[in-house]
């Protein structure tokens, strides 16, 4: 009913990276209790990691001979994505020292400005309204603890 998904750049590399992670986790699962007993704490993690390895191997076998198209940066990790992730990290880092109002306000302003490529007045207005709305609804309405700056 739905169209098959077109193959994406870097698909095989992603599967291989997941496979490497799964093999590492399989080894880690083995170190929990080895094969000491069939009901030991490590058995189920080993089964789960083993299933991960087998399923990824199946994916690799089924998709062999299907080349990945070029254009990883353009299609999978475009600058807009990387820029947004950097801004999210900025929000995480500043959340506790600067407090919710300043950190979230700054993040919203910067991200909206970045994503809509300009129009700073609109970005500032939306950021201000959103921060006030979230603060009123969640801090006052829902009684959620939001981080507050030490100097406030």
């Amino acid at each position, binding site marked *: *009913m*739905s169209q*098959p*998904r077109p193959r*994406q750049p870097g*698909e095989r590399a*992603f*599967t291989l990276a*997941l496979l490497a992670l799964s093999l590492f*986790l399989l080894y*880690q*699962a083995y170190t*929990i*209790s080895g094969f000491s*007993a*069939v*009901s030991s*704490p*490590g*058995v*189920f*993690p080993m089964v*789960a*990691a083993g*299933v*991960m390895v087998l*399923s*990824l191997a*199946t*994916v690799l076998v*089924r998709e062999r001979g299907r080349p990945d198209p070029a254009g990883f940066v353009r299609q*999978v990790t*475009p600058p*807009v*994505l990387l820029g*947004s*992730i950097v801004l*999210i*990290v900025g*929000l*995480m880092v500043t*959340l*506790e020292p600067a407090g919710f109002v300043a950190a*979230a306000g700054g*993040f*919203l302003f910067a*991200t*909206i400005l970045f*994503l*809509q490529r300009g129009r700073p007045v609109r970005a500032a207005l*939306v950021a201000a309204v*959103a921060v006030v709305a*979230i603060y009123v609804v*969640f801090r006052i309405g*829902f*009684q*959620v*603890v*939001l*981080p507050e700056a030490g100097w406030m």
Partner: protein
Amino acid sequence: MDGSALPYFLMAWLDPSLLALTALGTLAGVYIGAIPGLSVTMAVSILISFTFAWDVNEALALMAGVFCGGVYGGSRTAILLNIPGAPSAIATALDGFPLAQRGEAGRAIGVSTVVSVIGGMMGVVALAVAAPAISEFALMFAPRDYLLLAVIGLLLVGSLSGESLAKGVFAGALGVLIGMVGMDPLTAEQRFTFSQVSLLGGIPYVAAMIGFFGVAEALVQLHQLDAKPIRQKVDRIVPSWDVVKRYIPLSIRSSAIGVVIGALPGTGGDIASLMAYDHAKRSVKKPSRPFGDGAYEGLVAPESANNAAIGGAYIPMLTLGLPGDAVTAVIIGALFIHGLRPGPMLMIETPHLFWFTVGNLTLANLFTLVFGLTGIRVFAKMVECPRAILVPLIIVLSVVGTYAIQNSVIDIYWMLAFGVLGYFMKIYGYQVGPVILGVILGPLMDVSYRRAMLSVRDDPSAFALELLTHPISLVLTLFVVLLLARQTPAWAAVQSRLGRWRAGHGTGGSA
């Protein structure tokens, strides 16, 4: 329903704050479901963190409203913009959008609202009737049966909801492994903690849920920053009784499909709606128009089924502690946070919670009818919210929601890591739904498996024998084998041979 159940059923109806929260949840749900980029699973995940300090009834009232309203709301944008607001509205767009193109958007929305409520109500009736019986039956289940049910759930969701079983199974197993991190509940041995104290308590599953459903989806939305919504003229939306009457039989049949698919562990409204659409295509001999060109039948079937699947999905959640779909997996997480253990004992220890849920879902369906048939003009403005504003808002809510659980920044790092992983998984065709099911089902499977093994003194052959000699276990084992066999080349060969035999038999018979 006995006499003691009625007061619990009416609790949300008579308490003004619960009534208001259900109404608010449903209204918010309609918009959340309708706005592409916001999903019910995302909203319920974020709501857990904001409501964990509340009374459990209030939290559940809000979530039930969001769930019902959200599943319905997805149909709005499917009809108006050809963008399903939620995965369960994919089938709705197939005939809904052609209807809007013919200038019948208002009527299509009206019909979809009414049949959604019919489906939702049938789901609630099924829940009220079936759950007490299943719960009593579930008391006979041994740990191995829970293990088998959880395996069935993961296999079903893996095989039905994605492009390949292998990728679905990988996602489920990854979730299981995430659920294993921390101290083993039976022996207190450390698993995947890498000697980090912060990992002893495990990875906070709400952070994982918000990461996979909130941040990952927001990052995917960055690819559609410049998508422009198409405006539709919407006229009168309340349908006439004659129109509704015509579609009631199909709506009831589709609702039955929805309830059954919803009640299977792991599968929810998205699969139910596609199967109901398929059923309508096969069973309706004279549709109002050809399917795909704006047949009302193609709208009625998926919309009835996806709402009926809500009540269905609550059945395994409340009776067995197994999530019926991704949203109920998240709601199970909410119940855990409130100190409740969903499963057969929940119905015995806290029967009020069950009847409260039934009453609450009924109420949420009525509110869906009210909000579905009103406020269309405001709605048309809201769904045009540009993604450049929507995406940062989702991220702020995700960050604040994750922080609110334990006031810990480390949880936000987990959330972002899962968000980025979820982004790549979505891009490369891996479903993230099975991951969350795995996180919830993993610890249950682990403990069930080990209890079952310990009960036969670690003897694998005795364990295997128990799978075959106990009637319940045997049925479930056969189901697991059937699901696995369906994926093998031998199954396809048998099917094609059977098809040829049938064709030959049919020709022979008519000759």
